[in-house]
């Protein structure tokens, strides 16, 4: 009886240490360079920005809303006079890749083992083992957020043009795992995703201009 309680004591101490560490991390302040422009900032800006000719700002905003709706986003916020649209969508984050396959196989194997041991040693064999089953944590749901900002392009004398706009979209996502904790909080920086957005936007602009 003394051996398990010693183990439990050690476990509790480890848990407390972990808690302490979390508290220290929680108290830590933002890293000093968090608001500094980096070399990556410029590269990202190019990735996320396009100049569009032959359209005014309200029409471009309308076309952008169209693309967001095509992609299943809901509009959370908009301020036309500042050229701002904010949208989001909640989607599954379950990745039907190898990781999940492994997990399913793993849990099936485990269930089979548990059943076998239960049959051999009685129903209560794995009672203290329940926590282990919750160790399999995987991504379940995600919120994808987008903000689109437009501004009039300027002509050679620095005056804003009515018929040419600059548009920039930034994307980010929050992912929650099967325990309801945030597993990822990240900016989306994949060039392919932005390229796909702007391809769709070109088509939407074409439709928008035809409609008027």
């Amino acid at each position, binding site marked *: 009886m003394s051996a398990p309680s010693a183990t439990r004591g050690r476990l509790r101490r480890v848990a407390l240490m972990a808690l302490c560490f979390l508290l*220290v991390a929680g108290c830590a302040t933002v890293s000093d360079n968090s608001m500094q422009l980096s070399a990556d900032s410029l590269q990202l800006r190019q990735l996320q920005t396009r100049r569009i000719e032959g359209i005014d700002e309200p029409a471009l905003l309308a076309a952008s809303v169209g693309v967001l709706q095509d992609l299943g986003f809901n509009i959370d916020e908009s301020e036309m006079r500042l050229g701002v649209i904010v949208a989001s969508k909640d989607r599954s984050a379950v990745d039907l890749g190898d990781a999940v396959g492994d997990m399913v196989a793993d849990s099936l194997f485990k269930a089979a083992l548990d059943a076998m041991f239960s049959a051999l040693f009685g129903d209560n064999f794995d009672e203290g083992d329940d926590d282990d089953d919750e160790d399999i944590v995987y991504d379940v749901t995600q919120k994808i957020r987008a903000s689109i900002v437009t501004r009039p392009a300027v002509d050679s004398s620095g005056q804003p043009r009515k018929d040419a706009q600059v548009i920039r979209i930034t994307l980010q996502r929050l992912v929650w795992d099967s325990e309801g904790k945030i597993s990822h909080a*990240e900016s989306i920086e994949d060039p392919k995703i932005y390229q796909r957005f702007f391809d769709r936007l070109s088509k939407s602009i074409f439709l928008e201009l035809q409609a008027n």
Partner: protein
Amino acid sequence: MRVRSRLPVILCAALLFGCASSIDQVMQTDQSAVQLRSYQERAFDTADKEQTLRSVIATLQDLGFVLDKADLDLGIVSATRLSGYQLRVTVTVRPRGSSQMLVRANAQQGERAVEDPKPYQDFFVALEKAMFLTAHEVD
């Protein structure tokens, strides 16, 4: 042995108190309003509120933020950056006299207010570039 095993508990308790907690957080601030404003606030020599807000928005996008909210009438922009942690910032723009705009930023990271002047200084340096104007300290 007993004391040693209690050590983590004591340490945790100390940390918890160090962070302060619960309902006190509502009116909690570590610095005076004057101190906060000294690094959260800058004045720009322009009367163009819309252009100032547009520059703020462009700067936030440059810094990797996704917008949450924008309101020209109130002169407010809020945005969030996700990079492992959540950094949320609100920027207000309002006229100061007839020839200046007063820009104020405040930020929180996770569950903490950002009260280190450095990130704010960096933000205003980035904003100066977007505005092509100098940020003046406000007294």
